[in-house]
């Protein structure tokens, strides 16, 4: 999916010409004497996962700087523009969108109300660069391919061939993620099969659990709960006795008590935002540019085996490096193996 690393590399260079002069005044862009960061998130800010990590990192950072943080969660995409305007009316210096779903808020950055605010927009889809926003891009295929690969390594050692993937609604990005995950597993275990269940709801724990139970009953030993609020309910099915292997959707949870997860798939949006915030603090966050995050090149995203053997760890590391170096091209792999 997404743009390949080669063609995004120059986005930042050529669009910087159109960038505004906001950077010079950062972080108090509007000059009212205090720094206020506003975060808009389409998801539940307490989902214990993807969306929560975004604000958690921002919270820690703003606290350390003595700034104010305004966080607004569970925003309906249809209401994004209005919410962004409202934030601007609160005199924030930086408007940060938690995910690309809220892209319809971006036109506000060009409006008078939002004059003199910096904008941070994460994107795994393609969002048009404008002079008023700074884009941060990551590539879901890379992460999920590596996640599949890591799970594949574990499956191969234990002789498993069946895996399951559970997510909410059947959206393009979850479909893509499933394909990449499958491709990753097949890199290691070519005859593996992946059952993909769409429960229709990221947060319906009971249904997610039933879906997982059905997969497990059919012999799946690897389950990827690619979910929101329902993740933990599914993860709770893994016990030391049944040897189920679970992966995390986005954050590092290897260290948690109980050892529920076997693989941490880390594409923590908070990490990317953190980087942008420190740029912002230093007055270096430029509008009109985009920054890309690649597996194997940057510290995030990455994939971690929680209890991997040295051999498994080494193989995973090599695979990630190969992606980073372009030796393995995720998009090609996915279309080859993920179908």
């Amino acid at each position, binding site marked *: 999916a997404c743009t390949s690393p080669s063609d995004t590399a120059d986005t930042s260079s050529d669009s910087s010409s159109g960038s505004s002069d906001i950077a010079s005044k950062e972080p108090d862009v509007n000059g009212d004497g205090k720094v206020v960061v506003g975060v808009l998130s389409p998801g539940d800010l307490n989902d214990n996962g993807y969306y929560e990590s975004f604000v958690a990192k921002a919270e820690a950072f703003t606290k350390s700087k003595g700034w104010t943080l*305004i966080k*607004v969660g569970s925003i309906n995409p249809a209401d994004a523009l209005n919410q962004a*305007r*409202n934030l601007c009316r609160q005199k924030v210096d930086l408007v940060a969108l938690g995910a690309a779903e809220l892209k319809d808020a971006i036109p506000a950055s060009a409006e008078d109300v939002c004059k003199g605010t910096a904008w941070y927009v994460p994107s795994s889809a393609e969002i048009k660069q404008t002079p008023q926003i700074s884009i941060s891009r990551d590539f879901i295929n890379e992460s999920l391919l590596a996640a599949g690969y890591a799970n594949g390594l574990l499956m191969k050692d234990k002789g498993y061939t069946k895996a399951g993937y559970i997510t909410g609604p059947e959206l393009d990005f979850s479909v893509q993620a499933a394909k990449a995950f499958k491709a990753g597993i097949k890199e290691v275990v070519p005859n593996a099969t992946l059952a993909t269940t769409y429960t229709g709801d990221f947060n319906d724990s009971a249904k997610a659990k039933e879906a997982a139970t059905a997969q497990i009953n059919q012999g799946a030993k690897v389950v990827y709960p690619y979910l929101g609020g329902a993740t933990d309910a599914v993860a709770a099915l893994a016990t030391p006795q049944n040897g189920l292997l679970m992966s995390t959707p986005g954050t590092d949870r290897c260290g948690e008590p109980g050892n529920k997860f076997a693989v941490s798939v880390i594409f923590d949006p908070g990490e990317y935002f953190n980087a942008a915030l420190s740029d912002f603090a230093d007055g270096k966050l430029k509008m009109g540019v985009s920054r890309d995050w690649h597996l194997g090149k940057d510290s995030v995203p990455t994939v971690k085996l929680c209890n991997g053997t040295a051999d498994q760890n080494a193989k995973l590391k090599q695979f990630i490096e190969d992606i980073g170096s372009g030796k393995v091209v995720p998009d090609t792999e996915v279309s080859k193996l993920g179908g």
Partner: protein
Amino acid sequence: MQVTLITIVAVAIAVGLSMILVSATGGSPIDAAKALYTGSVADVAAWSETLKAAAPLLLVALGACISNRAGVFNIGQEGQLLLGAAAGAYVALHLALPGPIVVLLSLLAGAAAGGIWSGASAVMNYTRGVNIVVSTLLMSFIAIQVVSFSVSVPWLLQAPRASADSIASPESAQLPEAVRLMGFGQYPNLEIGGGLVIALILTIVLAVLLGRSRWGFRLNMLGLNPMAARHAGVRASYLGGSALFLSGAFAGLAGAVILSGSVFRLQPALSNNFGWDGLLVALIARSRPIAAIPVALLFGALRSGSSFLASTGVPNYLVDVVQSLLVLAFVVPPVLARVRSRGRAEATTPPSEPVPAATTEPEKVTA
């Protein structure tokens, strides 16, 4: 007069409760109250948002007035609205005609789609006796899936991908400027959307029709005594069915108005509780179109105020709580007053916990 007084007290209680909740989370109640005010009516920008929210609420409410009066209770507006938006989007995105014509057709398509969706419930009811409340509700769950489906397949409404292997979002492309519903003014000046104008005109038309026309009279009759209505020549399946159709059509129109007036693209979450809230507006207005105007405005103000409140960092959910409490505060007093005045005039309502005769008053011997 008395109602106003109770309302003030009730609102004060609701506000008080909300404030306690706000301060429990470390927020400042005063700031929260200010935010509610600032976001809803403090300036023209705020009014713009209030009016923008009020228009679809009013439209949904108008439809609900029609069906409620006919005694067919439609609670599936949420789905009808969404389908209306979908149909509107399809027309707006696929029709190559001059802008205003496309806008008009897209609004009509929205109304038609919403109407067909609720009309299906009418058909199920009058041919097979399926309960309308339940079928409209179930149909609305189905509508959500239909729309989700339509925005996830490229041949229907999904926005085209930028490149072959990029990820497509579950939404339609944006409507081009030319096919958006025009209004007066532009944010941050006072913005009066075309949707609001349509809604107000329809309110007046409907108020006249319901109050003064043969159709309105027969609708009332059907709702109050279907047997007598039948005797008077009212065909329930036809009049009730068309009332249900119309209520869906109004919801669908509301969807199309949201689409081409403020969101500009179809998203499965576009309905955003407008259907439910619109129904609530009609119920509070006791199915009277003119009364629905202030109620819709109130709800619009609550919406815009709440979304501003959310943008001050008060957790979103708390905002829902505040909104529900305020709705109760506005609903309870008039009903309470009505019940009490009825109690006084007729004195037929017994004390709520009546005690047997022997214990209330010792029996006196008056031989």
